[in-house]
């Protein structure tokens, strides 16, 4: 057989997003920008596109079910037909863009590149770029599977039309989208203005870049976003806040052993436990004493002020569910002077329970035993394939001196050997994006495949 690795596969970019999100604007930008690439465009919605030297082909969405209706086996018949034709003129272009309709499910589009042997050999799904209309997405995100899936499938998400929403709304939206799909790179754009190398030639397999952008995405998640360590004397301090994006938040005020970063770190696990216990609701003006009690402080109204009552001089840590900056929070002593934290730390928030679509990242050193890994993955995909929208990763197999890179869509999987490992580089990084994913089970299952 011919060795596919020796052939350059043509990169394909899939552009998704609801009507009005700016797909056509971005596409026009890509076609007119001077990037030196000849681009063939397949579009499902007929817009005002037409640029000399580029090939633009209209298509009508045709969903083909295979193998008796399993969702993992649906493909796009129109794309198979058109892409097969494009393969016959592959010397005429360097890149293919597919613009889907606003309501299109990206699943069958992505699966087409795995299911059809001819396309699989000739093409490489370089990336799924999803445009989000920041002004309107919140109207759809809770009840539209299409919106969730378009976000879940994305390698790159453009939060477009940022001029139409406030900075706070944008931060919240970005945090929410990030929790759903931690592997995607998120950019904020106006009129879909973006550098071309952020949307083209992403290299579908390159997880390194995802890790570069967000080093926190493989860390565990926490029920709080911030903690700060303070040196307090005995007496009352005031925790003053302004109204912000949330009507209330949980906090825990507790004693620390000593005034160091280590002293603060030692309290993290206990705070996690506190945050999973029952809270008491407090109104502005209430007194909070250092304890194992979770307090839910009200954040509605003006001049919000909570009293932190310190019994003895010492080191104390405050944990807050949301970042204090979102509420312009400050701590003052009884005389009104601001007291700053000696150390503080930001945590990756745990939004998993808010969303049915979430990401699970696994990062672990060691070598995988292919005899254990393959059956584990096969079994996982057989059971949870419909819930896994995307997965990708870089694996270190024993007995192989090269990186193994893979990506997958639902039950379909495409992997290959990549470049050799560099000195001291060997490790495994992978991410699953899907519904109802069990983080602990996935981590446990994966680590059992290590030698």
């Amino acid at each position: 057989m011919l060795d596919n690795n020796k052939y350059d596969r043509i990169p394909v970019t899939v552009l998704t997003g609801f009507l009005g999100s700016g797909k056509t604007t971005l596409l026009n930008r890509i076609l007119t920008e001077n990037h030196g690439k000849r681009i063939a465009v397949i579009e499902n919605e007929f817009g005002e596109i037409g640029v000399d030297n580029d090939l633009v082909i209209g298509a009508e969405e045709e969903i083909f079910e295979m193998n008796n209706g399993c969702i993992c086996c649906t493909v796009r018949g129109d794309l198979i037909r058109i892409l097969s034709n494009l393969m016959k003129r592959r010397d005429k272009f360097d890149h293919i863009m597919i613009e889907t309709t606003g309501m299109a499910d990206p699943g069958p589009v992505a699966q087409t590149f795995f299911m059809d042997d001819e396309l699989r050999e000739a093409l490489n799904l370089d990336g799924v770029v999803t445009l989000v209309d920041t002004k309107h997405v919140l109207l759809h995100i809770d009840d539209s599977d299409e919106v969730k899936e378009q976000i879940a499938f994305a390698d790159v998400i453009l939060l477009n039309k940022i001029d139409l929403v406030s900075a706070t709304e944008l931060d919240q939206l970005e945090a929410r989208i990030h929790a759903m799909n931690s592997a995607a790179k998120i950019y904020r754009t106006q009129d879909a203005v973006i550098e071309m190398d952020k949307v083209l030639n992403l290299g579908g397999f390159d997880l390194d870049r995802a890790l570069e952008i967000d080093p926190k995405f493989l860390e565990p998640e926490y029920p709080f976003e911030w903690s700060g360590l303070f040196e307090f004397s005995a007496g009352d301090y005031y925790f003053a806040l302004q109204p912000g994006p949330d009507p209330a938040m949980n906090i825990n005020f507790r004693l620390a052993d000593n005034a160091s970063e280590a002293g603060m770190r030692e309290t993290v696990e206990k705070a996690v436990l506190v945050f999973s216990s029952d809270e008491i609701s407090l109104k502005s003006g209430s007194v909070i004493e250092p304890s194992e009690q979770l307090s839910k402080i009200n954040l509605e109204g003006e001049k919000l002020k909570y009293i932190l009552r310190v019994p003895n001089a010492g080191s104390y840590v405050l944990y807050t569910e949301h970042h204090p900056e979102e509420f312009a929070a400050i701590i003052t002593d009884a005389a009104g002077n601001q007291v700053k934290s000696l150390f503080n730390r930001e945590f990756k928030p745990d939004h998993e329970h808010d969303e049915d679509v979430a990401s699970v990242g696994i990062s672990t050193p060691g070598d995988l035993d292919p005899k254990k890994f393959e059956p584990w993955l096969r079994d996982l995909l057989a059971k949870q394939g419909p819930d896994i929208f995307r997965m990708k990763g870089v694996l270190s197999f024993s007995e192989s001196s090269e990186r193994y890179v893979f990506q997958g869509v639902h039950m379909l999987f495409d992997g290959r050997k990549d470049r050799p490992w560099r000195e001291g580089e060997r490790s495994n990084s992978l991410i699953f994006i899907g519904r109802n994913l069990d983080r602990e089970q996935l981590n446990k299952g994966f680590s059992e495949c290590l030698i």
Partner: protein
Amino acid sequence: MPDIDYSFLDDDLLIELSQLELDDYIIELAWSSNGENLAAITVEGKVFLVNKYADIIKYKLIGQHDKGGNSVSWRSDGKEFATVGHDGKIKIWDGISGNEIISLEAGDSWVSKAIYNPHSNWLASAAGRQLRLWDTNREVFYESSDHSSTIADLGWSPDGSGVAVAAYNGVTLHVPHKQKQPRKYSWKGSSLVLAWSPDARYIATGEQDSTVHFWHRASGEDDRMYGFPTKVLELSWNSTGRWLATGGSSSVILWDCSGKGPAGRKPREYLAHSNKLTQVAFQPTGELLASTGKDAVLAIWDPMKHDKIIGRKILSAPASSLRWNKDANLAIGQEDGRVAIFKLKS
């Protein structure tokens, strides 16, 4: 992979008559019925006419479909041929001079196929999901309702009474004038190519899901053949209708359709290619079979005698179209735009 048996190979079997450089991926070739003219259409929509007088071959570019070409078909008398393309047009060309006779509006976008009826000289065309039939005055006299997807393939029945359409969800047989409702041969899958057996007992289809179906035309039942590693785009019946040759792998597979049909019978397998097949074609009259693969090998078989390769040529690129004429000349259109024409040692 098992070793290929070359013990019956005759290096002189194939004699090259010509190599034409048309410079553009050849989508399809078709010989006129007298075997003297060959029409070619390329992916960019260029239409060529090749004339063969004895062993002297000349060709010329006669026209073009804007945006791209899809298919070519000769009228049975050889006086004209039709081409279709991405411009929504059927173009009819004079079979001798190559002059364009007429350009017909046949759809909004791609016209994927147009095929002449072997008896009535009607033309069947497929554009999008719709089938249209044209009479000899070039007027549309039949328009189908939409099929469940874009039409992938068409084929007139051997007696010319009906035309079968392959699409997602199987085959639909349209018999204009006689039958009000087209007959469905339903399958939940995407049928990519179809081929009528010459005796009209079967309509064979190659499928996206890597199967081949044999539809019994009369009963509407089907036999499904599994085990192909890829989707199946290559089908060819032998002249008697007993054997169907299929691609979908690196071997040529022959299915025996005599008696009750291919179900439960072990097919014959012919090995000569190191990569999957791109074309397979029985002689329209005669016993020989030709196959080509992604390995750019042309292989000739005498499959009723034995399973060993008898003729072999290395092409400059994989073949995208393979056509025998009545004189056992073989025309091969290639991905690199060349057309090679061979005759057999007499």
